[in-house]
């Protein structure tokens, strides 16, 4: 009987996606990047607590949120540029919308400026020069998928981006789903 229960639990975890959507930490000598998938419930609760309009929350809860933290462990500048981050799922490209897309969308919905501002500050910057020892982060928003997400991300290095290019890859990212 006990064995049967133990077999059921992993199955349930897979079905609800909870097992898959675990934090992923990638380490290189120069970088440490952590990815933490957020459930729709986590995100809508966060935005609801800050007075975001329901129409905005309804759109956001259909997205895949992954909170990313990036630490520059090297002694030189490392350049984040999200245009050099390529996502795919099930062998097909997964398009991440630029923050300008969201800006336009909220403007068209006449979302209050304060909410637009908070939303922007919770996003991972599109570009940023990480200084040695600096840690910054924010949310990535992807179209929701229940498939594993692959990422190849490139970073320029050096004061004028003339150093070696760092590349990190993973195929272990997942969107988090609410518990059933």
């Amino acid at each position, binding site marked *: 009987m006990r064995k049967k229960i133990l077999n059921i639990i992993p199955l349930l975890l897979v079905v609800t996606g909870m097992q898959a959507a675990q934090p992923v930490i990638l380490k290189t000598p120069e970088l440490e990047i952590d990815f933490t998938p957020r459930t729709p419930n986590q995100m809508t609760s*966060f935005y609801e607590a*800050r*007075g975001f309009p329901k129409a905005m929350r309804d759109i956001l809860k259909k997205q895949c949120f992954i909170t990313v933290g990036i630490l520059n462990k090297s002694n030189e500048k490392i350049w984040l540029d999200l245009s050099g981050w390529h996502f795919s799922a099930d062998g097909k490209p997964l398009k991440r919308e630029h923050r300008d897309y969201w800006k336009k969308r909220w403007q068209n919905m006449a979302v*209050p*400026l*304060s*909410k*637009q*501002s*908070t939303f922007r*500050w*919770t996003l991972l*910057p599109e570009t*940023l020069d990480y*200084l040695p*020892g*600096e*840690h*910054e*982060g*924010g949310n990535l928003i992807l179209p929701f998928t229940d498939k594993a997400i692959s990422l190849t991300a490139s970073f320029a290095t050096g004061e004028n981006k003339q150093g070696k290019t760092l590349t990190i890859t993973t195929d272990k990212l997942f969107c988090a789903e609410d518990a059933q």
Partner: protein
Amino acid sequence: MKHLPKIFHLLLISLSLLSAETVFAGSTGSDIKTPFGIRDYNIGMAPDFTLQDIDGETFELAKAKGDWIFLHFWASWCGPCREEMPTIQKMADAMQKENFRIVMINTAEDEDTVFEFLSGIDVELNTLMDLDGQVTEVWKPRGLPTTFLIDPQGEVKYQAIGGREWGEPLYVNFLKQLLLSTDERR
């Protein structure tokens, strides 16, 4: 016991070097060694703004010239901001007799949220309210929290990267050296 005089001698030399370094560091602003996490950020005159604090008092940056200004952007939802607040309070206590102003700017939250947050973490810091987030947009901090240090002439000189242990001697001494360098130039 036999080695004591030697040790004292070494100590004296070290102390002399330390004080010489302090005097040298304090002689001009540019000679001051910046602690970890603070970088030179000479972007010229600080963009002006006028905001109200949680008590409804108006603050205009351009009218605050004459003191060094610690301009700090924060939000209650930002974890590092929460962790940093008590250290800013500690630094404020250490700097209260100096020509130094702490100007906090909350980014795009309402009074109720801010009041609840500040009273919940037991600090006595007031904050300006950037209710629509537009002052923050102009200043473009790297992230939240971010701090800028503005000299008495109104020029931005330094930027702090992320949350710092402002109450630690490393940072308090750095801030005091900035003030000293300005006093010596007056």
